[in-house]
């Protein structure tokens, strides 16, 4: 199409955006409103000779319409006028009486008179009817009003067939007069007969039309056919030879064309086709191109009307199908016997003729092209050409031939009319946009719409129409495949024409701001920032955020749906990319606040869940559940945390304010945070906190932020690529909170979390071995619920050290007496820490001492001698690990234990939850004193013995050591001394052994160890050895348990066979001296009590008296001095356990003196299997005295 014009109109090669036509025409005053849909509506009448106002809304069918102008005169309110106008224009087609022809009426309320002057060229441009509407309230105004009507008539006078005046408000005499051209109505509400009046009026128009048609059609060879011409031709024909054949032909051709137009208007399609064909023939021969074009266009129009009775204008109701007789089918061009607008015509010849006359759809376009090429030869016919292009485009749109349509449109773009006013430009671009839309060129349509929008606010316009601009811009959105819903951008990376879309968004922002709607501009700007972030340069990001901040300072961005007056809704734009959230993790409560379920209840739950221990189906389900549900709980009233990993994509610091959680399910008090993220930060953890105020399932749905003054609610579901460990967690009822503080200093070091428990507090203390420290723990309920239950358990972390006695001991009763503990109240709880470790187990140290040859001779060891030991050990080339372990005396052993406070209370307790608070206790035990060696010496009494202990002071302080009833022994630092303690022997067998213990330690070795430990304890408590460091004012116990070996134990053990020797009824033991009189027999009794578990005996005992000369000589030859009354040998039968056997005898001392009795077993009677120590009988010391002379 463009090539078509190349040669003929080179000046038009530059397109229509720039008006370069030299003969710029007078610009009519731009009046009217943007957006009115009928092209003619928007210009008031102007005068002139060339048609300059195109009607972009024209379509081919308009050729068959009659143009009627409806105008107000005088002062008529717009509202009233358009009410009437609407009613009038509803009568747009009329079935003319006594024929089946249909008349179509086009109504205009404005029509430029210079367009009217082209009425001969194309009769549908001619105003044939005028209806004026006026208000007139008094009879005296009437003549004036009527005069105005006449003036109005004058404007279109030359072409009018008929006219009407509708007078509203006038009543009375004048209104009574029946007049055909004037109708009176009392007011705008009572005018039922308007439609009828219009119909009458149209019929009168038809009569004139029909008469004109017949008139012109019949005088074919009449006298002289007048030359019809368009306004700008008039001067060209001055002085032309009117008698030439050429001129006549021209007149004929033009008249034919005119008749064709009239026929078409009068509803005689077939006739019009014939006339047009004839006209084309005639005009072609005389090269009358302008009119030839018009004739061709007429042909096209008639064919289009025939082919497409549905219309091409796309205006609903513009063309109603004429009754049911007309088929809706359009495209089929070969339809013999088809129905026409004239109804059924039996004459087949006309039918054939029509089929021939009527153009095929392809031909229509060809003829349009031809017509347009002819029009384009005339600069003054620009409007005609433009309108023809538009009409052709509409036809092509119906034919779905978009490519050709676009060529026509392209051509239309290049047609320069004159210097267009801004409104006209807007009009033009809007129409181009609409037409492009019509042929499916959405992008092109959007382009022109945008140009139109920009035109609305061109700087040359005094009052820029920002509102219209904004409205038009919104309409371009689909063309740029841009929706204003940020959800559409969530799927993956944004793909589109970012540069173009960004431009459009910027324009929307600007237009909405100028419109005075800051909320809209904030919304658009947010949208721009959110969706186009990846495409914005750093500088643009800065600029956009700056302007956003300045907008939001006046109108903060909200999360509400913004509704535009025309029904478009702008969904809220949450800033999910400012910052970008990569991961959402719900955090468990800190270990000390974590609720735990009572075991028993948990067990019930588990068993109720499924009868199977394991099922793959259940496991699978659980896996799914886990994705959403979390296996820990939150507690009502306690601060809960959610950790977000956020990322700031901006090249500057991002301030995020009011960042909080969005939740559902549970009443939740969110505690918003404000944060500031450095530019292009990496992943940055942010913890959002809140307090659940009720119980149940809480879902973390998202978070809210305020960035640059825009509130955003970001839902996790809509965030792409987010990692989460689930978003639903259970909130259990409130529990009390316990805080503990201790008398001991807090320890910085934490315990090795070997047990998996998390320790909230650590205390540490340094103790000497054997020392006892009291730990006061203050329990404070800092929660809001009463603390009702408390359980304390301790756990000693695995240590290789052997520990004696209770490390931690406490009495809970006193504390529990203060319960329930109301919020804010404090209770105290005391724990005793006792360190009893065995530091003496350092074998080679013991070895050293033994090597030194210290005998158990009872000599106190000299301290200087001891002191050489230490360096010697150090220098000893033993293997290094052993030396480092053993050689260091000041080796500090550590003991670690955890005190667990399980507590509960309030509603959480009812639901079976408790909390666990752990206190880590770290004790550094330093050796105080230890016993390097132990041995026994038999005491004088068989029931007692001497325990010899080598005590070593490994502290750096002087200390004193004391046993139960001994005096204190002073030990200097590093000194070793021997102390002897006389102890009663122990009867270990009498210790009760609980059956539980027996079953627990089924291993005999363990059983033995346990027993030994018990013995050690017993011995320890008997010995009760204490040390005291006066300089430090510290004291403690010293324990011998570790060093007691089997041999020593055996010595310390009371024999199971208890031998009692009674002299004169008096129990004799080592130190007791029995007194007797010479000459009197003394009864001697030997009693055996069997404490062992088996039968013993029989035994034979012989009593051998002797005298000790204290010089190592024993005199056994005492037959002269002592006489036995009875036998000196006793026989004891077998004695069963726990029974006793008594042997009685008597002695008679003949001389005074000190005698000893040695009771001996006969060797053959002593059973071999019994240990010798069982047969240890006390020696008896008897002092025989002479008879008391005085007595």
């Amino acid at each position: 199409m463009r090539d078509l014009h190349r040669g003929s109109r080179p000046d038009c090669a530059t397109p229509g955006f720039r008006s370069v036509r030299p003969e710029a025409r007078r610009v009519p005053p731009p009046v009217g409103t943007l957006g009115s849909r009928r092209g003619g509506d928007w210009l008031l009448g102007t005068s002139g000779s060339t048609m300059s106002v195109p009607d972009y809304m024209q379509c081919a069918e308009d050729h068959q319409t009659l143009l009627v102008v409806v105008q107000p005169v005088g002062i008529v309110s717009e509202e009233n006028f358009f009410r009437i106008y609407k009613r009038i224009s509803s009568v747009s087609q009329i079935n003319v009486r006594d024929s089946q022809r249909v008349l179509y009426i086009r109504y205009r309320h404005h029509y430029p008179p210079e367009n009217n002057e082209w009425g001969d060229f194309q009769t549908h441009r001619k105003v044939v009817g005028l209806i004026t509407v006026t208000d007139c309230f008094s009879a005296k105004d009437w003549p004036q009003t009527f005069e105005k009507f006449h003036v109005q008539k004058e404007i279109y006078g030359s072409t009018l067939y008929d006219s009407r005046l509708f007078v509203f408000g006038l009543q009375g005499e004048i209104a009574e007069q029946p007049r055909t051209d004037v109708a009176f109505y009392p007011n705008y509400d009572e005018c039922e007969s308007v439609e009828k009046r219009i119909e009458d009026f149209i019929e009168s128009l038809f009569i004139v039309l029909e008469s004109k048609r017949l008139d012109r059609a019949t005088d074919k060879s009449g006298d002289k056919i007048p030359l019809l011409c368009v306004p700008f031709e008039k001067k060209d024909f001055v002085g032309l030879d009117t008698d030439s054949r050429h001129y006549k032909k021209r007149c004929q051709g033009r008249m034919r064309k005119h008749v064709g137009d009239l026929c078409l208007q009068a509803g005689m399609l077939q006739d019009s086709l014939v006339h047009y064909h004839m006209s084309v023939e005639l005009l072609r021969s005389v090269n009358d191109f302008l009119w030839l074009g018009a004739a061709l266009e007429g042909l096209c129009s008639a064919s289009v009307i025939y082919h497409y009775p549905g219309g091409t204008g796309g205006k609903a109701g513009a063309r109603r199908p004429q009754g049911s007789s007309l088929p809706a089918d359009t495209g089929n061009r070969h339809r013999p016997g088809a129905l026409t607008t004239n109804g059924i015509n039996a004459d087949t010849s006309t039918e054939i003729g029509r089929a021939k006359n009527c153009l095929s759809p392809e031909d229509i376009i060809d003829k349009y092209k031809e017509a347009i090429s002819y029009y384009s030869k005339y600069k003054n016919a620009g409007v005609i050409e433009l309108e023809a292009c538009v009409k052709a485009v509409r036809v092509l749109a119906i034919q779905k031939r978009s490519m050709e349509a676009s060529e026509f449109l392209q051509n239309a773009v290049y047609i320069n009319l004159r210097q267009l006013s801004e409104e006209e430009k807007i009009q033009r671009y809007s129409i181009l946009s609409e037409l492009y839309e019509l042929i499916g060129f959405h992008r092109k349509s959007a382009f022109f719409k945008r140009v139109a929008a920009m035109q609305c606010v061109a700087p040359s316009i005094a009052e820029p129409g920002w509102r219209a601009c904004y409205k038009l811009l919104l309409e371009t959105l689909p063309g740029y495949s841009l929706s204003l819903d940020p959800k559409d951008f969530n799927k993956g990376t944004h793909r589109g024409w970012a540069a173009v879309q960004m431009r459009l968004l910027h324009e929307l922002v600007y237009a909405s701001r100028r419109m005075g709607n800051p909320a809209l501009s904030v919304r658009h700007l947010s949208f721009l920032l959110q969706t186009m972030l990846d495409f914005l340069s750093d500088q643009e990001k800065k600029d956009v955020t700056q302007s956003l901040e300045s907008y939001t300072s006046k109108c903060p961005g909200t999360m509400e749906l913004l509704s535009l007056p025309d029904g478009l809704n702008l969904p809220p734009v949450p800033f999910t990319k400012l910052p970008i959230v990569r991961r959402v993790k719900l955090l468990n409560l800190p270990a000390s606040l974590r609720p735990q379920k009572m075991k028993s209840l948990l067990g019930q739950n588990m068993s109720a869940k499924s009868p199977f221990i394991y099922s793959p189906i259940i496991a699978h389900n659980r896996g799914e559940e886990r994705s959403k549900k979390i296996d820990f709980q939150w507690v009502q009233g306690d601060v809960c945390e959610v950790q977000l990993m956020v990322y700031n994509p901006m090249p500057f610091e991002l301030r995020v304010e009011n960042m909080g959680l969005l939740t559902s399910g549970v009443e939740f008090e969110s505690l918003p945070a404000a944060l500031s993220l450095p530019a292009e930060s990496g992943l940055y953890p942010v913890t959002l906190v809140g307090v659940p105020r009720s119980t149940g399932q809480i879902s973390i749905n998202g978070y809210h932020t305020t960035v640059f003054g825009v509130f955003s609610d970001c839902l996790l579901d809509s965030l792409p690529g987010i990692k989460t460990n689930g978003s639903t967690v259970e909130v259990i009822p409130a529990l009390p909170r316990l805080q503990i503080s201790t008398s001991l200093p807090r320890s910085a070091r934490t315990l090795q979390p070997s047990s998996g428990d998390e320790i909230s507090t650590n205390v540490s203390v340094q103790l000497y071995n054997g020392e006892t420290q009291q730990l006061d723990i203050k329990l404070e309920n800092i929660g809001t619920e009463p603390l009702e239950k408390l359980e304390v358990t301790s756990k000693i972390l695995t240590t290789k050290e052997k520990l004696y006695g209770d490390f931690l001991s406490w009495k809970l009763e006193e504390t529990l007496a203060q319960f329930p503990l109301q919020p804010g109240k404090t209770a105290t709880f005391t724990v005793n820490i006792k360190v009893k470790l065995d530091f003496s187990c350092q074998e080679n140290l013991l070895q050293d001492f033994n090597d030194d040859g210290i005998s158990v001779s009872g000599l106190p060891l000299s301290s200087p001698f001891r002191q050489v030991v230490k360096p010697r050990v150090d220098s000893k080339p033993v293997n290094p690990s052993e030396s480092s372990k053993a050689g260091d005396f000041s080796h500090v052993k550590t003991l670690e234990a955890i005190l667990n406070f399980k507590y509960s209370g309030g509603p959480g307790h009812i639901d079976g939850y408790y909390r666990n608070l752990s206190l880590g206790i770290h004790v550094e035990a330093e050796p105080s004193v230890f016993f390097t060696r132990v041995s026994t010496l038999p005491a004088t009494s068989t029931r007692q013995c001497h325990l010899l202990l080598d005590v070593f002071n490994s502290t750096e302080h002087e200390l004193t050591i004391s046993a139960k009833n001994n005096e204190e022994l002073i030990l200097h630092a590093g000194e070793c001394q021997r102390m002897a303690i006389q102890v009663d022997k122990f009867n270990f067998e009498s210790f009760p052994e609980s059956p539980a213990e027996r079953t627990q330690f089924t291993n005999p070795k363990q059983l033995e160890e346990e027993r030994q430990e018990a013995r050690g304890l017993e011995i320890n408590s008997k010995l009760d050895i204490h040390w005291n460091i006066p300089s430090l004012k510290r004291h403690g116990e010293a324990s011998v348990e570790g060093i007691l070996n089997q041999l020593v134990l055996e010595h310390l053990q009371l024999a199971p066979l208890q031998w009692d020797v009674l002299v004169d009824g008096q129990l004799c033991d080592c130190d007791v001296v029995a007194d007797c009189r010479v000459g009197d027999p003394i009864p001697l009794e030997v009693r055996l009590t069997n404490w062992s578990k088996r039968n013993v005996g029989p035994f034979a005992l012989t009593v051998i008296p002797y005298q000790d000369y204290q010089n190592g000589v024993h005199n056994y030859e005492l037959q002269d001095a002592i006489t036995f009354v009875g036998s000196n040998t006793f026989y004891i039968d077998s004695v069963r356990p726990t029974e006793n056997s008594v042997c009685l005898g008597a002695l008679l001392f003949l001389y005074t003196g000190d005698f000893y009795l040695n009771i001996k077993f006969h060797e053959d009677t002593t059973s071999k299997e019994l240990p010798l120590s069982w047969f240890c009988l006390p020696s008896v010391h008897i002092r025989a005295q002479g008879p008391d002379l005085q007595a």
Partner: protein
Amino acid sequence: MAVCIAVIAKENYPLYIRSIPAEQELKFHYTVHTSLDVVDEKVSAMGKALVDQRELYLGLLYPTEDYKVYGYVTNSKVKFVMVVDSSNTALRDNEIRSMFRKLHNSYTDVMCNPFYNPGDRIHSRAFDNMVTSMMVQVC
């Protein structure tokens, strides 16, 4: 000599767009964007033709006052759009065609890169150089 060369994905978003007067980039964006209407139309009209007989070169899409816009569509519906200065009358249809062929070859090379994700913007130096050569030198 081309003033703007664009590669447009099947889904009609730009994979690559480059223009010589960089200040007017947006203008060329608009030009290429609107030309897609014509491309779509031509492709849909061609769709009826047999695939193997399809001509990839679409010819002149539309002329504007200063430029001519040419189109080319691959079998995978990737579009190449070239904007040529209309004052440059030396350029014939055949030369345009050969330029498109070169562009297509280079694009194929880009696609052969295992590190290129189909659908991403093209950031290839080789492709860039080729486009630059087409923009500068008269083919």
